[in-house]
Structures are given as structure tokens and as C-alpha cells.
């Protein structure tokens, strides 16, 4: 076959001279074997954190959002910070599965499955915050345009908050469908390897009777391509609309046209950091080093440099425009960010988001697993602070100096945030034991192009 050969200058993406059968064995091993000690330790920690979150959330529901530190001036605080942070993390999964598919980047195939799973879990965590921020979550169906008994009053389609309802629900369901359709062939592989009848039955149900005929594969590939084409503008629109929640207001520090691209770049930046954090642990624990190679980590680090630099430029542009606009309220908002009472949040953001990713210009650091892991944690923290700085510093000194206040979270709010981290990792750990964490079928189709033994020839 002539089309099967890759340029000799490319490094292999699959190491260890694999055969198709060996790949099946390697990737099904975590599902078929018993969980090891590290899995159980992580699971217990994550599950405990999740339970703590549920307790704090129950307290909030019973008491009302007065249990939080948010007040009249700082009405959006810790909760919306977390919402934007989690949604942003989700964006890397869609970028890897959709945008890199359109660009025909083959290295995405080793990481897309788990990155998409991460997207779904992150969006679940994100969704919790606005749902409970409404204060009376049992009335949240009011957010949908349904005819109601209070007179035919409809939802407000002029409001970015309603756009968010549509954007997040579309994003969540489309990501879920994209992820699950991709899983079908791999679930069929697991089904056909199952020994016990109970497992065979369950995986048989989950695999939807996948048989892998030429016609199925033909349609499958077309569906993946079209879904990628639909998801690409979708993912950009979701964070654009999230940024509209801020940008369409008149609050100094929020009312800027740079927000949509700045938020999208920030989202991808934080998402890749989370993918790296997860993948570096997962490749070790599930022994997938031959599939998620140093080259994969290096390529992701390059995306971190790019998006991190875009975010850095955006910070500086915001500052410049605040000065250049001549609007003193805007100027004050930005001076207050830098040197006001929340200076420490601002400078943590600057250090973590603008300075640390620039270390990846050194090849030694971007090919080092340890350095990547540490920097990815820094980026996760930095991006959380970015949302905190945007929300809290812009609000806490608003139009009337008499209503200027400080904001600090209560342990209930912190507990809910810790709980969502617990929920995220609980879901991810269960995913790693139940579903194939690597898109097996896709990866097999590139073995002869990028497998190490084929490139040697």
C-alpha cells in the first residue's frame, strides 16, 4: 500500500513494535484486570472529597445561598469562578477530538478518548454551579422556554445568561454523543473478549451491536468528520457566550470586546494543562507509556506555549486599552486589580499563566515528565485565579464607594469546589476501569504509518 508510509523525519507515535493484538491486550488490560493499590487510594480520596461536596451542597440547598460568602456587591464570586474554570477545562477535549481531527493531527488519537471523557466530567462539574447559584434549584426549569401557568411570560432571549443555558446544554449533549459514538467499536472489542456472561451482556448492551462492516466504518468516519466540523464552531461559541455573560454588561473590567478570543484561548490553555495533569498520571498507572509518549507530551506543551502566550498578550492588551480609552473608571478597575487589596490574586495569575508556560521554550523542560506535571498544575491554579480576578476585583469596588466590600469564601463554598474536584476524579477513575481509555480502533488504523517497527524499515 503506497499511502501507508510516513515521512522518515517523523518520530513514531506508537513505540514498542506492537501488533494489532498486542494493542488490544495493552489497552483492555486495565478493564479486565483488578484495580491496583494506587487506583484504590486515589478513588477513596476522590470519593471522600465528593461526599464532602455533597454535604456542603445539601447545606446550601437547605439554608439558601446566604451560606456562601457572596454579598450584595460581589454577587458572583467563587461559584461563577468555578463554573468558568470547569467549562474552560472541558474545552481541551473538544479541541483535541474535533479541531485536531480536522487538521489531521494523528497524535491526537492516543489522547482524544480520555480528553473527551474529561470534557464531559468537567461540564458536569461546571453545570452544578449556575444550577445552585439560582438559590432555588427546584425552580431551574424556569430557564427553559416552556409555556407556564404564570401568564404567558417567556424567557428573555436578549440575555447572555439564557444563551449560556442553550450553549452549555448543546455542548454537553453533543460532546457526549461524539464521545459515545467513538466508543462503540472499542466497547465491541471489550465485549468480544469478555469471559463471564454478565460482563458480556453489559458490554453487549453498551456496544449497541457494533459489527464493524465496511459500510458501518464508512458511515462512522463520515459521522466523525461532520461531528468534528459541527463541534469546532460549537466549542468556540460556548466560551464566547460564557465571556458574553461578562462582556455585555457595563461593569468596568468586564465591558471589553477582547473577551471572546481571550476566554477561548484561556479555556484551551487550562484544558490542556488538565489533560497533561491527568495523562501523566494515567500513562504511568495504566502503563500506557508506549502509546502516550514523550512526543505527545511535547506536542501538548507546544499548544500550552501558544495559548499561554495569547493569554499573556490579552492581559497586556486589556491594560493598554484601559489606559488608552481615557475612561477613568476602567483605568481604576485595572489599577485596583494590580495594586488593590487583591493584588496577590492578580500576581499569582500573572506568574502562573504568563511566566511559567514560557519555560516550555526549553526543550529539556517540555520533554521532561516531571517539569510538565508541575507546570501543568501551575497553569491550572493560574487559570482559576484569572477567573477569580476578573469576577471579584471588578465587582468588589463598583459604582458606589459606599457599597465597596471585600469578599472571602466560606468553608461551604470551598467545600463545594473541593467536592466538584472529587466528583471529577471519581468519574475519571471509574471511566479508566470501565471503558478503553485510548481510542483503540482509531489507533490501530495508524499503526502501519507511525508504529516504531514500520518506521525503522
Amino acid at each position, binding site marked *: 500500500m503506497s499511502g501507508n508510509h510516513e515521512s522518515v523525519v517523523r518520530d513514531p507515535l506508537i513505540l514498542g513494535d506492537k501488533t494489532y493484538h498486542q494493542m488490544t491486550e495493552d489497552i483492555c488490560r486495565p478493564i479486565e484486570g483488578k484495580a491496583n493499590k494506587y487506583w484504590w487510594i486515589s478513588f477513596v480520596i476522590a470519593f471522600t472529597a465528593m461526599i464532602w461536596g455533597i454535604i456542603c451542597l445539601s447545606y446550601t440547598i437547605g439554608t439558601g445561598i446566604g451560606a456562601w460568602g457572596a454579598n450584595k456587591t460581589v454577587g458572583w464570586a467563587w461559584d461563577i469562578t468555578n463554573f468558568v474554570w470547569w467549562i474552560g477545562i472541558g474545552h481541551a477535549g473538544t479541541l483535541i477530538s474535533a479541531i485536531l481531527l480536522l487538521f489531521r493531527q494523528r497524535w491526537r488519537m492516543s489522547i482524544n478518548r480520555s480528553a473527551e471523557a474529561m470534557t464531559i466530567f468537567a461540564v458536569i462539574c461546571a453545570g452544578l454551579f449556575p444550577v445552585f447559584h439560582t438559590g432555588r434549584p427546584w425552580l431551574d426549569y424556569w430557564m427553559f*422556554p416552556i409555556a407556564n401557568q404564570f401568564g*404567558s411570560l417567556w424567557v428573555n432571549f436578549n440575555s447572555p445568561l439564557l*444563551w449560556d443555558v442553550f450553549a452549555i446544554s448543546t455542548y454537553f449533549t453533543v460532546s457526549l454523543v461524539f464521545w459515545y459514538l467513538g466508543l462503540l467499536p472499542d466497547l465491541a472489542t471489550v465485549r468480544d473478549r469478555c469471559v463471564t456472561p454478565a460482563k458480556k451482556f453489559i458490554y453487549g448492551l453498551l456496544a*449497541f*451491536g457494533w459489527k464493524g*462492516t*465496511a459500510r458501518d466504518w464508512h458511515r462512522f468516519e463520515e*459521522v466523525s468528520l461532520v461531528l468534528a466540523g459541527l463541534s469546532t*464552531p460549537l466549542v468556540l461559541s460556548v466560551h464566547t457566550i460564557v465571556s458574553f455573560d461578562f462582556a455585555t454588561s457595563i461593569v468596568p473590567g468586564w465591558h471589553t470586546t477582547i473577551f471572546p478570543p481571550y476566554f477561548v484561548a484561556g479555556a484551551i490553555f487550562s484544558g490542556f494543562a488538565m489533560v497533561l495533569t491527568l495523562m501523566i498520571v494515567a500513562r504511568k498507572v495504566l502503563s500506557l507509556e508506549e502509546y502516550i509518549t514523550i512526543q505527545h507530551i511535547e506536542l501538548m506543551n507546544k499548544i500550552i506555549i501558544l495559548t499561554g502566550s495569547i493569554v499573556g498578550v490579552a492581559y497586556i492588551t486589556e491594560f493598554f486599552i484601559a489606559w488608552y480609552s481615557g475612561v477613568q473608571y476602567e483605568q481604576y478597575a485595572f489599577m485596583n486589580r494590580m495594586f488593590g487589596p487583591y493584588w496577590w490574586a492578580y500576581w499569582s495569575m500573572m506568574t502562573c499563566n504568563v511566566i511559567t508556560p514560557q519555560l516550555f521554550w526549553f526543550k529539556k523542560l517540555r520533554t521532561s515528565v516531571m517539569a510538565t506535571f508541575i507546570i501543568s498544575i501551575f497553569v491550572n491554579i493560574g487559570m482559576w485565579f484569572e477567573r477569580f480576578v476578573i469576577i471579584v476585583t471588578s465587582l468588589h469596588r463598583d459604582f458606589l464607594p459606599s457599597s465597596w466590600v471585600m469578599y472571602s469564601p466560606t468553608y461551604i463554598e470551598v467545600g463545594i469546589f473541593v467536592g466538584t474536584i472529587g466528583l471529577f476524579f471519581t468519574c475519571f477513575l471509574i471511566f479508566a476501569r470501565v471503558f478503553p481509555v485510548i481510542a483503540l480502533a482509531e489507533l490501530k488504523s495508524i499503526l502501519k504509518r507511525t508504529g516504531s517497527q514500520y518506521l525503522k524499515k
Partner: protein
Amino acid sequence: MAKRIYGIYEDEEVLMDAITSLKGNGVVCKDVQSPFPIHGIDKLLDVPRTRIAIVSFMFGITGTSLALLMTWYMMISDWPINIGGKPNMMFYMNLPAFIPVTFELTVFCAAHGMALTFLLRSKLLPGVTAPIPHPRVTDDKFVLHVDVKDENKLNEVVSLIKSSGASEVMLKSMQFS
């Protein structure tokens, strides 16, 4: 009554060459089951190009129309409200504020409509039993489906498949040799 023969192959390149040579000998290759998509096999098997992208487009414009109808009815026709001084007397004047929702509903309908169509068209639903002629067809084996109309030619076709590189040949759930 046509007989269905399964030729089991170990490698997709051997399989592709086999299909070409078998077709040259007048053997009817109906389908292939494989653990991953094989590029270029659609042409060999004369699989017609799927129209699922058109389906997606149709669902997409349905979504657009629904969204426009909904926003027009709710915000302009049924209960117009002056919100922040935004013009709400004419649909086209208020339209910019409705674009995000229209876009999201377009994507929603296009994606889900296409996904459902794909599942129904390929008969993929929970509870469906997959016809798996060889247990490793989702692992590393490639199965070629051949139909033989004339039973007298059965042995001839079997030997043709074997000489084309198949490791095993099966006759519809019965092992041949």
C-alpha cells in the same frame, strides 16, 4: 440459494490484494468486517458514498428554522417586552440578540439528528446482537464475506480464497477446514 462464505485474513493489506484478485476471478465480495476502518476498501467493495452529511444539513436547517420561529413567537409576537431599550417591535431589529440561540439549536439538531440517523441506518441500538463470524474480528482479524450462487462452484471459490492469503475459510457458522 446463495451460500455465504467467510474468509479470515490476518492483515488488511493481504485482504485488499485478495479482494482485487478474487474480483478478477468473478467472485462476489459482499462485505468486510474489520477491527478498524481500512482506507480505500469502500471503492473495492463498491460501497456507495453515504448521504449522512446531507441528512445532517437537513436537520441543521430544521434547527435554524425552529429557533427563528421560537424567538419570533416568544419575543416579538406573543409577549414583547422592552429589555434594556433593545428594539423589539420588528423581528429583524431584535435578531442580532437571537443569533447565539439560533446557532446553538442548529448545531444541536444537526448533531443529534445525524447521530440518530447513523445508529438507525447501521442498526446499532442497545440490545442488538452483533453478527460476529469470528471472535477476534474486533481485535485483529479481517473477515471477508463472499456469496456463492452456484453450489457446484463452492469448492473452487474456497480454494481461491485460501490461495489469496486467507488463514481460515468458514461456511456460515460451520468450519470448513
